[in-house]
């Protein structure tokens, strides 16, 4: 498991992975808790609203992961922009 550890050791990657887990937790594992119609939010039944909200938030989460990963991981050689 040497490789996995090596990757986990970079702080930026670790933060990015934690952020990346959020869509999976909210859209997959939280599903039994959100399978309901009420409350209706923005005119949408709750289950649909919940999934839509996290689809909209996913790019925000990933952009944050990208920023933090860049900040904490030194850029690799040959990497552009």
């Amino acid at each position, binding site marked *: *498991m040497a490789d996995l550890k090596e990757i986990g050791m970079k702080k930026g990657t670790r933060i990015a992975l934690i952020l990346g887990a959020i869509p999976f937790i909210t859209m997959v594992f939280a599903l039994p808790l959100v399978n309901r119609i009420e409350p209706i939010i923005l005119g949408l039944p709750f289950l649909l609203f919940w*999934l839509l909200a996290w689809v909209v938030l*996913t790019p925000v989460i990933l952009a944050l992961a990208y920023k933090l990963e860049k900040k904490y991981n030194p850029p690799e050689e040959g990497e552009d922009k």
Partner: protein
Amino acid sequence: MNAALFIILGTILFSALLGIYAGRRVKMNLENWTVGGRQFGIVIIWLLMAGEIYTTFTFLGASGWAYSKGAPTFYILAYGALAYTLSFFILPALWKVGKKHGLHTQPDYFVNRYNSRALGFLVALIGVFSIIPYLQLQLTGLGLIVEVASNQAIPSRLAIAISFVLTCVFVYTSGIRGTAWVSIVKDIMMIVAVLVVGIGVPMIYFGGFGNMFRTLIEQKPQYLVLPGGTSHMGVIWVMSTLLLTGLGFYMWPHVFGSVFSAKSANIIKRNAIIMPIYQIPILLIFMVGFTALLVIPGLANGDMAFLELVNKTYPSWFMGFVGAAGAVTAMVPASILVLFASTLLAKNVYKAGFNPKASEETVMRLSRFLVLVITTIALVFAIAFPEELVNLLIFGYDGVCQFFPGVVLGLFWRRVTKTGVFCGLIVGIAVVVGLIVSGRDPFLGMNAGFVGLAINSVLTLVVSLSTKPTDVKKLESEERHDR
């Protein structure tokens, strides 16, 4: 009526010409044909991936499921976001391996990583078998859309034949560049169609989507929570299907291969961030399906809900526009599916299995020839065996997602071995086929493909740990020697 006909045929022809034009002045070798010379920037990659991902299924399947099944269809909104999240972490690493070793296809990756032509051969065959139903899905959808949109002026079979022959021509001449260019037409038309219908239809019949949902809650509330209008697609089914499709998404040979066409690993990473935005229009497609459920209930075929409702609501020229958008929406994914199916067969089945000495030019020529063969086969299938749309797609997913352990462990875990991946893959596929054929899908409420993937992953891990590690250094030097 004539206007509809003109719009549909004009769009199909224009797209094909644009696709052919895209390949001008490019010297066609395998590198340019399959991966665009690894020169695509972020805009073109985004268009290309969106072009591959948003297919006729987006039009017909998602609205059809909302209409006939209700809430289980919500998985279609969410799984893309999961897939892109995952891609953020794995695709940049994959791109780097591809660049370093000059890989073109998914089986190339397996051959390279596990130093096994046999494994590449197996992956190529599974890939092609999974592509065929996906391709057929595009053709069937295209025929359906054009036939209805042209008010039967263009029969389904004729529509399939015309547009697919033209698709075949631009794949032949331009390769992946043709797909990327035609994607632009497709994306614009599809977005316009979805916005107009998705916002318009609830507005026209209910004064807005809020009121539409209120009516639905009064009349058919069970459609808005799991398991919707079905008995077996409950929470567990949706969770397992989300994981299956989220993980399996980039395992499609054509999507996997497109990764290599990017200019850099960073472009792939930034693309993963913006991809989920393209997922949002699917919400509008659900609205169309739900509105149809209230306005025109009782259709025998749910996949027709979108078209029937548009037909009932809009003038015939707009129906023509929808038909044209639907046709291009099928042509783009069809083109890339054919492109990769033929490359897999030429490079990873023919060359690897039967003629290792074949030159790259021979492989290229054979790939182009196979474009014609696969087109013909898919045409015959589409005309002979039309089936309900979403079922076909899930079946393909069950197959390709079995590549997941081999790809991801291969990238991040040195200890995974050829034998481990072989065992996992074969048993995973066997479990899927066994469950589906014996009528046990879903199994304990879970999607059969997911059951296969779980067993596959455990087996890959256990067998890898109990076999001799692959000597990576030796592998790399052999690889260099090979070239």
